[in-house]
């Protein structure tokens, strides 16, 4: 869980940095997308690195989800009779955000891939440049799309606020002297990711980037 | 109540010779059991406290086939877990003049010359091994910055020989023993029976050969046979209903063994602990001890004037009576438990007590906070202060604690010889359940020491000596069936009464009676009254108790009723013993026997003996005296002035 999560976090950081290129120019963003595919050429065929990354990511996502499902199945098995009254003493944050948040993220992921990767649900369709798809996707007239992304990205942020800290704990690298730093760090990274991911769509929707 | 006097008894197992060599000699003389034979020898250990837990673990480790029983859901919850203050050992790590001899000397003297020199000396000798053993098991004793073990002085001792683990020494030591025990369970040498209560002892051919237990979940009455039985079932302070003991502590196991022939020694010796949280109301179910270490820095006082109901903070110093410092200038607030307890009772009897019902005295940290600062006090006592506040809702940093004495420990128990064997061959008794080492008064931090000495070091040797003659063959079916039938019929009888009073209400009444008539101060008159009242109350119990439910289920009312029934019989013997012992000694204070200053006055001429009571089915107990001789520590009157 922690390892696959960490892979995804690393990916998210890279992904976010790439997205931010849209602020430099459409071409810069497109170049980045191309670079992703042509990196390591001619040492290796076109798309080698990207494919590796995609495979690793896909495996991570699958394993992560599989682990999440098996954890929650164990949890159900471990408590067959529910409490009539149950009150969380630790805020209940982690419990709900991780499971329900996680599911929201999966749904979003599917949508996101269909939208901006395959362009199936994008107004520009599959045959277009990434920048076109992005800018068309978040057109002011499609504010609801931006809203979906907003909700989803905030979800990812919340997931990671617990997840990053939790991963350190799971891997045994946490201790009471580091808790504060870890929690703050996790919140910080999550906040940066949320802001970094939301900046392009919001900028497009509000007409800052055209 | 009448009694008969039987022939005197002598503990013949202690070797002669210089006291330092006796244990060594005994160990050497003890027969060894061939390792291959050990597996064929079955031992039953009832109780999983420090004594029973350490014994079962060690016997398992040695290769015997052990069955271990406790009434809790896991062995780790035995009452030893609650001990707070610490454990004594003559390590002399501080170089402050401690030694095996000094611990021996202090214990004999502290016990008011009513314990056996040989036993006490062995206890002091073995004490050092206990600390080594516990540390090796990972018991996290308090340490100093240099990484070495910290010690403190405890309960009036003038050397720092008490090892401790914050306020949870008993817990940490017990977890050490528990873990050792579970290790043996995993190894298959010990079979554990939790939620099983021992209800009778099986005797065949004069030897203890097993126990009858009730599975407290299903109600099934089970028989377990073995080559020897060890009782480590703790103390019987709960005869007073209110005590610092856990709710389940009982006398059932040792009482039934007594009824089967084991002598009961010094039943009247009870220890009353001076620093407990006072009773707050009728519903009170138990009393909570505040560690004695509080007396190191707290000052005990009551208002000088009777009926002074000002808030403690409003009473100026010259209208306070720091009575311990006044009466005992040399020891002040650190006088031994029995003295501190009785002094508190006296000032309350004078009408100067504080809190509900006037049954309390102040333990004040104002000066300590002034002298050391609040932080230092918090560091030392923070958890105790919290506990106090949790229970009373009062903050001891702002207002003095209220404390009152409560029953805490019972020095009496089944009589055992130097080998810890009772008068029934094959029945060994260890820990608080026996009477062995503390005489008429136990020193603070010595019970943990004794329990572990018995379990880890003494019993494994002496039991081996007994078992070397085994295995003892099949147990006669008739003996087993008889014991089982007795247990079953008793349960049926309890269930059949269907009266109008709960077992607890009888227990409360009995406890009250014992506290009033056989508590901190006893008189011939009070004891005679008690001896009159107890049989009446017992008769009412058997005619009018209400036990709901059935045997074949988890039935806490039935468990309780069985224990209360035994407490009645024990209470009677306690009062008789207290009546016969017309001297004062240690925790046993007879008002008729005091000196001009109101201090306990021993009568060595007539009472330098152990009173071992034999049960007789006709009801007239037989008193056997075991004379006590002091070759090393000169008998003297205790004085803490």
């Amino acid at each position: 869980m922690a390892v696959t999560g960490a892979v995804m976090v690393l990916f998210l950081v890279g992904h976010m940095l790439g997205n931010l290129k849209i602020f430099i120019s459409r071409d810069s963003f497109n170049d980045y997308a191309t670079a992703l595919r042509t990196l390591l050429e001619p040492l290796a065929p076109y798309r080698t690195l990207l494919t590796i990354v995609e495979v690793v990511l896909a495996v991570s996502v699958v394993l992560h989800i599989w682990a999440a499902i098996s954890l929650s199945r164990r949890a159900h098995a471990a408590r067959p009779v529910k409490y009539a009254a149950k009150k969380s003493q630790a805020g209940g944050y982690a419990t709900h955000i991780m499971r329900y948040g996680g599911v929201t993220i999966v749904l979003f992921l599917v949508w996101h891939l269909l939208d901006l990767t395959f362009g199936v649900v994008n107004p520009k369709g599959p045959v277009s440049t990434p920048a076109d798809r992005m800018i068309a996707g978040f057109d002011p007239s499609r504010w609801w799309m931006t809203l979906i992304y907003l909700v989803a990205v905030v979800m990812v942020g919340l997931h990671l606020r617990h997840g990053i800290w939790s991963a350190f704990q799971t891997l045994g690298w946490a201790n009471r002297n580091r808790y504060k730093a870890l929690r703050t760090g996790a919140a910080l990274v999550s906040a940066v990711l949320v802001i970094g991911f939301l900046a392009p769509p919001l900028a497009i929707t509000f007409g800052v980037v055209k | 109540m009448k009694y008969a006097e039987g022939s005197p008894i002598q503990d013949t197992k202690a070797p002669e010779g210089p006291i330092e060599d006796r244990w060594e000699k005994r160990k050497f003389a003890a027969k060894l059991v061939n390792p291959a034979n050990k597996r064929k020898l079955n031992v039953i250990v009832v109780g999983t406290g420090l004594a029973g837990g350490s014994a079962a673990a060690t016997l398992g480790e040695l290769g015997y086939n052990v069955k271990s029983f406790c009434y809790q859901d896991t062995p780790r919850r035995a009452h030893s877990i609650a001990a707070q203050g610490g454990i004594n050992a003559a390590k002399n790590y501080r170089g402050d003049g401690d030694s095996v001899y000094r611990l021996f000397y202090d214990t004999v003297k502290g016990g008011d010359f009513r314990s056996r020199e040989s036993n006490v000396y062995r206890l002091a000798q073995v004490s050092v091994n206990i600390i080594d053993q516990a540390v090796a098991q990972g018991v996290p004793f308090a340490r100093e910055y240099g990484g070495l073990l910290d010690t403190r002085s405890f309960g009036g001792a003038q050397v720092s020989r008490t090892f401790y683990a914050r306020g949870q020494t008993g817990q940490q030591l017990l977890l050490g023993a528990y873990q050792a025990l579970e290790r043996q369970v995993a190894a298959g040498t010990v079979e554990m029976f939790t939620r099983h209560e021992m209800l009778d002892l099986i005797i065949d051919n004069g030897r203890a050969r097993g126990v009858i237990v009730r599975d407290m979940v299903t109600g099934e009455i089970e028989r377990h046979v073995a080559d020897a039985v060890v009782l480590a079932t703790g103390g019987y302070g709960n005869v007073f209903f209110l005590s610092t003991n856990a709710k389940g502590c009982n006398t059932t196991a040792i009482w039934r063994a007594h009824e089967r022939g084991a002598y009961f020694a010094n039943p009247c010796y009870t220890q009353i602990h001076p620093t407990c949280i006072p009773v707050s109301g009728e519903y009170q179910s138990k009393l909570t001890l505040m560690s004695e270490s509080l007396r190191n820095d707290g000052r005990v006082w009551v208002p000088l004037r009777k009926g002074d109901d000002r808030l403690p903070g409003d009473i100026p110093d010259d209208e306070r009576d720091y009575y311990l410092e006044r009466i005992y200038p040399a020891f002040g607030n650190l006088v031994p438990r029995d003295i501190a307890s009785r002094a508190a009772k006296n000032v309350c009897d004078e009408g100067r007590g504080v809190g509900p019902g006037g049954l309390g005295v102040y333990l004040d940290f104002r000066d300590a906070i002034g002298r050391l600062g609040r932080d230092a006090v918090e560091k030392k006592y923070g958890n105790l202060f919290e506990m106090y506040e949790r229970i009373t809702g009062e903050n001891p940093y702002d207002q003095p604690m209220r404390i009152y004495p409560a029953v805490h420990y019972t020095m009496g128990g089944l009589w055992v010889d130097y080998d810890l064997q009772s008068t029934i061959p094959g029945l060994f008794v260890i820990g608080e359940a026996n009477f062995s080492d503390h005489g008429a008064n136990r020193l603070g931090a010595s019970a943990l020491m004794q329990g572990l000495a018995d379990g880890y070091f003494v019993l494994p040797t002496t039991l081996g000596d007994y078992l070397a003659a085994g295995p003892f063959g099949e147990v006669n079916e008739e003996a087993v069936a008889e014991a089982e039938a007795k247990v079953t019929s008793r349960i049926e009888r309890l269930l059949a009464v269907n009266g109008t009073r709960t077992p607890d209400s009888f227990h409360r009444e009995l406890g009250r009676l014992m506290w009033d008539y056989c508590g901190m101060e006893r008189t011939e008159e009070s004891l005679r009254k008690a001896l009159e009242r107890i049989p009446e109350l017992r008769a009412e119990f058997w005619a009018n108790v209400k036990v709901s439910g059935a045997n074949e289920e988890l039935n806490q009312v039935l468990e309780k009723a069985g224990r209360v029934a035994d407490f009645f019989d024990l209470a009677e013997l306690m009062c008789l013993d207290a009546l016969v012992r017309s001297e004062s000694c240690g925790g046993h204070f007879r008002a008729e026997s005091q000196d001009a200053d109101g201090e306990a006055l021993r009568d060595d001429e007539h009472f330098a003996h152990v009173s071992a009571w034999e049960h007789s089915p006709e009801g007239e107990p037989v008193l056997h005296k075991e004379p006590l001789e002091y070759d090393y520590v000169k008998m003297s009157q205790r004085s803490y002035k």
Partner: protein
Amino acid sequence: MNLTLKVWRQSGPSDSGRMVKYRVEEVSPDMSFLEMLDVLNERLILEGDDPIAFDHDCREGICGMCGMVINGVAHGEQVATTTCQLHMRHFEDGATITIEPWRAAPFPVVKDLVVDRSAFDRIIQAGGFVSVPAGSAPDAHSLPVRKEDADSAFDAATCIGCGACVAACPNGSASLFTAAKITHLSLLPQGQPERLSRAKAMVDQMDAEGFGGCTNTGECTAVCPKGIPLDTIAQMNSDYLKANAK
């Protein structure tokens, strides 16, 4: 004070159980929670009803025998307090209080509020000890221990094995209990030789007992009467991962 109690009643493992309502009157604020139940039970006995079964022994917050979920919180809402140390002054007159047993498959209900926690013993059996036969120990001062280590080990060692952590955990995980023991022994030099094998054996046993997995929700420490810190779980994970890497 007068109170309404909603208590889980279940006559045995095979009964499906239900909540039953009771009125208790004239409760003193100085009573402990268990004393309040004692008073109710005394009444039930005399009325010929089955009294409510609950576990308890020391009533001092140290044996770990007591435990019930009170108004949805293991041991009640008072922090760092066992059920037996909880006092009625923390409740309001007229309140309704819901009382349930620890709920976890590895802790089957025995009767009413009594559950079977023997799974904890089996976790300890798997390796929660230092193997040292009586009489073989070296002198206690032969191995100094840094005070900080001794203190941290002590913090972990104060676990009373009550099971509140399991009861509170949304995953029904026993990680805090198991980690407390692993950490206690891991931090001391005496625990080193068996350190990794112990962690592995205990964690594997915990899983085999059917406890859920830890997702670091922190619900356990929040209700733990001894405040066993969460980093014990990190310590356990670290030892466990190292053991598996070997």
